[in-house]
């Protein structure tokens, strides 16, 4: 296996792009990543996307993007792993370069969600759950997470308010990110008064429906010095799976796939969680941040809320998360979110995160989760 580096990154602002299609967004992110790298060569294009068929009536989306971006006749494939599609697409690009099949591979995540009304998006997102035994019973994605959250509150005697620091942190950091969708800071009062989606989960517990695309260009580490910008090495890349149905786990509050993918990625990089300078985790709901921090070893079981309450997840804390807003503050264009996390991690490590810069960051971890913890993909990036 060859070492692999990220040599170019690009992203569109996340938002409700009424006047732009899935292909427009993907093309913009790709163009920016290629410009950023200053390298023309592309051998293959992998497109991370979850819902183009359901929300845009379009499959064969990798060919569509390759065509629109002027990359024909190169290899182009869609990579899908529910909300973890963005992490999965970098993993596919990483594997292709590491094994020597290709040298220069573009990984772009793209999602276009705002053409469809909320009940349609809610139904589409539930496609990541078990169709016959969760979604068909009206158990929405928010409801699955709400069930987890209530159980967590029961087992650890926590209140709903205790989850507020995650949302407040995400919004505070998003305000520093020009590409973020929700750039207004929020208060504890705002969190408490936010309308309920599926109790106890409210709107400010939940990452919002949005459009966006983010891209990374990777190549063998040995050739990365050709790039215009400092290369970022991928020192860990791992994927793990768990039962599709949340109820089929021995303990639904233990996210084993998340734990396994983090442990494998850390093992490859020969690192421990305490070595990580920043962690872009999959904060689709505040409870997911809690379960991820505990599964990955940043907090003991039942103690992630304390970590947040003590400010340790802030930019100046010992384990900053969602440094450019996370899914909550930046926005969650589902199949693209993983690539946003990775682009943001790379920018942090290059020292280009502006006012959201984590001082001295040299090791970052980015983790995408699909379904209710049923698939997790973790990458470790280093400079």
């Amino acid at each position, binding site marked *: 296996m060859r070492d692999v580096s990220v040599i170019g990154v690009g992203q569109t602002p996340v938002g409700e792009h009424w006047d732009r299609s899935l292909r427009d967004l993907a093309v913009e992110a790709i163009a920016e990543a290629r410009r950023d790298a200053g390298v023309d060569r592309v051998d293959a294009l992998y497109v991370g996307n979850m819902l183009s068929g359901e929300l845009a009536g379009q499959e064969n989306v990798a060919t569509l993007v390759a065509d629109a971006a002027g990359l024909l006749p190169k290899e182009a494939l869609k990579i899908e792993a529910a909300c973890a599609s963005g992490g999965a697409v970098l993993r596919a690009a990483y594997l292709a370069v590491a094994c020597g099949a290709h040298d220069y591979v573009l990984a772009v995540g793209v999602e276009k969600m705002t053409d469809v009304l909320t009940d349609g998006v809610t139904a589409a997102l539930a496609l990541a759950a078990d169709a016959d035994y969760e979604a068909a019973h009206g158990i929405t994605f928010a409801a699955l997470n709400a*069930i987890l959250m209530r159980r967590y509150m029961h087992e650890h005697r926590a209140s709903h308010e205790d989850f507020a620091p995650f949302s407040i942190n995400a919004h505070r950091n998003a305000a520093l990110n020009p590409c973020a969708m929700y750039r207004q800071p929020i208060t504890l009062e705002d969190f408490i008064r936010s309308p309920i989606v*599926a109790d106890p989960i409210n709107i400010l517990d939940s990452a919002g429906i949005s459009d966006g695309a983010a891209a990374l260009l990777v190549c063998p580490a040995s050739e990365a010095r050709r790039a215009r910008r400092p290369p970022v090495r991928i020192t860990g890349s791992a994927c793990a799976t768990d039962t599709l149905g949340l109820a089929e786990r021995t303990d639904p509050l233990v996210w084993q796939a998340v734990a396994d993918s983090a442990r494998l990625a850390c093992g490859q990089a020969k690192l421990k969680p305490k070595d990580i300078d920043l962690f872009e985790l999959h904060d689709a709901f505040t409870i997911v941040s809690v379960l991820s921090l505990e599964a990955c070893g940043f907090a003991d079981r039942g103690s992630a809320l304390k970590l947040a309450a003590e400010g340790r997840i802030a930019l100046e804390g010992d384990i900053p998360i969602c440094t450019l807003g996370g899914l909550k503050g930046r926005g969650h264009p589902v199949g693209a979110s993983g690539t946003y996390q990775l682009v943001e991690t790379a920018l942090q490590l290059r020292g280009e995160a502006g006012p959201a810069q984590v001082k001295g960051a040299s090791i970052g971890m980015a983790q995408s989760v699909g379904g209710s913890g049923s698939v997790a993909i973790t990458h470790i990036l280093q400079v």
Partner: protein
Amino acid sequence: MELPRYHRLRGPYYRLEGRACPGCSRRFVPPRSVCPTCKSGGLRPFAFCGRATLYSWSHVLQPARGFASMAPYTVGMVRLEEGPLVSAQLADADGVELAVGMPLEMVTRKIRDADEHGYIVYGYKFRPLLMATRPRP
């Protein structure tokens, strides 16, 4: 829901039919063909008794397409007497103060709005056990 798919699901949906592992005696619903614990195949049909306790729940205020007429409705995860957890809607839960661990029983109810095919999908739900039949402490 497509008619053949609904037909395939009638055992679990109407009667909570699952599988039992001959290797380690674990029971499953939804049915599985391979036991994830001991990797045995040849799992046998197993009918659950329908008694359960409440693991956790949520009132859904923002329903998915196909459930608008039922909103707000309550969903939960329940622990079946035989061991497994199941996700389901809770029935007859209006005005009932729900609590982790409370006893429930399975009932068969309409589980979603009639879709474009026009027929009604029935399936299991769990309701708080009626006071009269609740075991005395």
